[in-house]
């Protein structure tokens, strides 16, 4: 078996990969491969994970009380009680928007790119996003040698539209999230379990086919009018990216398992499918497929039906947020239920990350997890008081277990671009001091890092 690209990998010495495998209950059959990736693994790899849920929160039930250094969680955040020492909630963060599109739509690219949507008519009264999202800016700067530069996961995230995509390589270049854990399993871990001979044959077949497609794209591109060739260049680059990782991914890890097959597109299967996507993320990190990933639950545009039937919902999330704030509003009570459940799912994800030992701590200690939303609250469409939560990253200087409370006015509350800059700093890019042309200040988010 040949390992043509191994020499390109960052190979910081480490020892604990075998123990990670053991902790995950991975098959002894993998033992022959273990030394291979021990060689390139790191003890405490810096990782970034972006996490999204739609339509903000019910702010006053979300925010903390008590001392900022030992905060008391609001009822919506109650499920995170067991991870209290692993999180920071950030209060009164705003996103200064470009003024175009509906707020759910423009807030979405805004969340991780710092800019909204461009003028244009592609989507009625607006176009695509302006610029790359923070994770892709980091990817471009670090040029990681992991098999995947980054991995995008989603669940019921809809189609290609700025209100439904949050990760961008550049303007009008959304990255498609993998929305089905079964597909993720097959795509990322599908070759595992095959014999050495089978792997070699599969790899050779794919290379041969991709070579042909590559050649065919070249012929096609020659015939195409120059202004449209960029689409073929992107396609060609994508093929090169896939070719580069073919032989790496087959050897690097063992597949996680999916105990219960569900239709990831169906509403009622959401709790199971989401948990399975979490397993895919954790396994992708543990196996060294990438160090940068995202999880987009639903979409920035209206989180409409189907309902949260597993919470007893008889009205969809988006509509519920638009109900007026009257006393004992059933719709608002339902919203609180939904947001509390988001916190439960987030806590479950943190459980999974904390269960993987890594270096002197856990996977969570090495991973900066940032949870955001496209608006602060659905009905007002306000891009203020976005309920940001940061989790993990203790090994690399995140000051966890506190509440960062900023001034309540738009003048005194910082733009979320500070947080985007902090992510760059965390990942080893101190030279980045502002994010996007609309950024009105510099530096990372005060108080976040040690």
């Amino acid at each position, binding site marked *: 078996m040949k390992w043509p690209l191994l020499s390109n990998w960052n190979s910081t010495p480490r020892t604990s990969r075998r123990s990670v495998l053991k902790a995950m209950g991975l098959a002894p059959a993998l033992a022959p491969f273990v030394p291979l990736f021990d060689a390139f693994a790191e003890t405490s790899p810096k990782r970034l994970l972006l996490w999204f849920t739609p339509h903000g929160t019910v702010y006053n039930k979300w925010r903390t009380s008590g001392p900022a250094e030992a905060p008391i969680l609001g009822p919506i955040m109650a499920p995170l009680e067991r991870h209290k020492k692993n999180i920071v909630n950030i209060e009164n963060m705003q996103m200064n*928007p470009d*003024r*175009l*599109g*509906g707020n759910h739509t423009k807030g979405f690219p805004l969340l991780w790119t710092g800019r909204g949507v461009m*003028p*244009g008519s*592609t989507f*009625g*009264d*607006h176009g695509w996003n302006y610029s790359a999202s923070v994770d892709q800016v980091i990817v471009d700067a670090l040029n990681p040698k992991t098999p995947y530069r980054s991995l995008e996961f989603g669940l019921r995230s809809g*189609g*290609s*539209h700025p209100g439904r995509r949050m990760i961008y390589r550049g303007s*009008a270049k*959304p*990255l*498609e999230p*993998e929305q*089905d854990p079964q*597909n993720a399993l*097959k*795509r990322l871990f599908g070759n595992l379990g095959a014999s050495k001979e089978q792997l070699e044959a599969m790899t050779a*077949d*794919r290379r041969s*086919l*991709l070579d*042909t*497609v590559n*050649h*065919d794209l070249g*012929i*096609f591109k020659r*015939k*195409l*009018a120059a*202004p*449209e060739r*960029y*689409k*073929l260049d*992107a*396609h060609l680059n*994508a*093929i090169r*990216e*896939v070719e580069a990782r073919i032989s790496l991914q087959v050897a690097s890890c063992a597949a996680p398992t999916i105990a219960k097959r569900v239709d990831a597109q169906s509403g009622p299967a959401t709790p199971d499918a989401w948990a399975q996507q979490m397993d895919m993320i954790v396994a992708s990190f543990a196996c060294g497929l990438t160090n940068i990933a995202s999880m987009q639950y639903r979409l920035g545009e209206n989180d*409409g*039906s*189907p*309902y949260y039937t597993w919470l007893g919902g*008889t*009205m*969809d999330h988006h*509509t519920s947020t*638009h*109900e*007026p704030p009257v006393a004992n509003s059933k719709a608002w009570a339902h919203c609180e239920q939904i947001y509390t459940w988001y916190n439960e799912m987030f806590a479950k994800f943190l459980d999974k990350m904390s269960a993987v030992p890594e270096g002197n701590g856990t996977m969570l200690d090495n991973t900066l997890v940032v949870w955001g939303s496209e608006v602060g609250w659905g*009905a007002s*469409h306000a891009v203020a008081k976005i309920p940001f939560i940061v989790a993990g990253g203790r090994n690399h200087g995140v000051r966890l277990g506190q509440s960062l409370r900023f001034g309540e006015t738009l003048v005194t509350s910082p733009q979320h671009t500070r947080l985007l800059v902090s992510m760059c700093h965390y990942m080893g890019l101190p030279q980045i001091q502002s994010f996007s042309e609309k950024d009105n200040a510099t530096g990372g988010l005060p108080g976040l890092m040690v």
Partner: protein
Amino acid sequence: MVLMKFDKMAKKSVFRLGFDEARRVAIAALMLPLWACSGGESGGVGGGGGHGGDGSDKVPGSGTTDGACKDGESAPFQLRRLTRAQLDNSVRDLLHVAGLAATGLAADEKVGSFSSNINTPVDAFLVEKFEQNAERLAAEADVKVLANCGTRTGIACGTAFVSEFGRRAFRRPLDAEETELFLALFKSRMTDEDGLRFVIRAMLQSPNFLYHAEFGEGSERLTEYEVAARLSFMLWNTTPDDALLDLAGKGGLATPVAIRTALDGMMNDPRARTGLRGFHTQWLGLDEIASLGKSTAVFPGYTPALNAAMLDDAHRYIDHAFFDGDAHLSTLLTTNIGFPSPELAKVYGVKASADINAPVATDPSQRAGLLTLPAFMATHAHPDQGSPVKRGVAIRQRLLCQDLPSPPDNVNNAVPMPSPDATTRERFAIHEEDPTCASCHLLIDPIGLGFENYDALGAYRMDENGKPIDASGELTEAGDVDGAFVGAVELSQKLAGSEVVAECMVRQWVEYTLGRRAGEGDDCLIKDTAKAFLSAGGDVRVLLGTLVTTPAFYQMSYATMKGGQP
């Protein structure tokens, strides 16, 4: 000339201006009658472009120079990837397998109302999906039947297959370089069968299959094979069959008249049902229905199966209008029949037919065509209540082709809550009282309130909360349909006879066929085609027949035909 200026401005600026400005401009444009065009786009090439629907050689209105529409540049050519439905349908026709080609791919991009993958380039994620799907489909195919090699084996079999299957998959014959490329793959395998599957795997990942490959033939004019593909995807939403490719191969699509004749023939094929269903469901937004749900608190017993029944009803209604009816716009908008399942029959308030293919007559005072279908009413509604806003917007955007700007940032756009002692009309009155709302909502709500007889499922109702329904509505700033009306039946009848609606329908077909927004440069062809459409009494087949004879259809782009640069 002042009018012309407004018209031109409106086309490019409704999206970009502040609302008051955009409204004034858009509306000024819509107040115009259907101006005739210079016909400049229809002369000079192909000997007969721009035929009118009446079969005469003369473009309706050609020769007039009142300037209401002027020759302009169409959007430059843009490379599109096949939509999910096009991939699925094409693979079904190419391989005769049950498997789907679009598994795991992103939902299509929407351009206007229609699916068109025109913006987002292929990334590594998609490349891996293409690989996986191609491998699965090639394994599923019965290659012995597909290749039809007979007694030929080895290279002879492979060569024939690359040539024949290649022509179907790429929608044109392969050249020598391509043949060699794919034959090499065949030769690299141990057995013929394996070789054939390997060729299929590669071709399903080829740009010639995945994209609408249009290059012209050293000019802006599409090749006849490319015209065949455009025809096929327009009317059948799938890849052209051997007969259509044969026609292209022997010069049978060289003139606009021949293209039109081919289209007329294709209308008799069952695949036309697929394509026409596709256009109409996207045009009216009904393709969103699968993702909608209704409140089980308000509608006990509601299940998503009802959505499927609504869509099926709409599909059969469209089939009926085209293949059992006269395919006229008025037929689409005013026929009072339905094809309800037993559950949907309850919504209609009729008895379901024992045979789902047999139409059930509905009450002519309650139902008239597409706009009163439960599918349309339920799509443009909230889960728990109807929506005068969604319905008004749907009419403005989909029937009148007027795009509306988003609400301003700082408004509270909460939907007024259902209340036990008020009607929807009473609750939505706030939109007219509050001046920040009124500037937009006066264009929207008075239309939407005309649908008050239909609840969130599209069931007809005479009263709400014990109060009688007032379904009076009004169209304003909508050209020839301006004026008061009562209820959706009367509204449908007004729209069915409107030139503005006819022109809008042409615009929608242009956007659907070309997979891009219609721009200023398309005005003349739209107006010309609308003329032909109207002179044929609103026969949609004439609309399509006329559209395919315009340069917009058989050219890469439009301005270059007149000597401009691409």
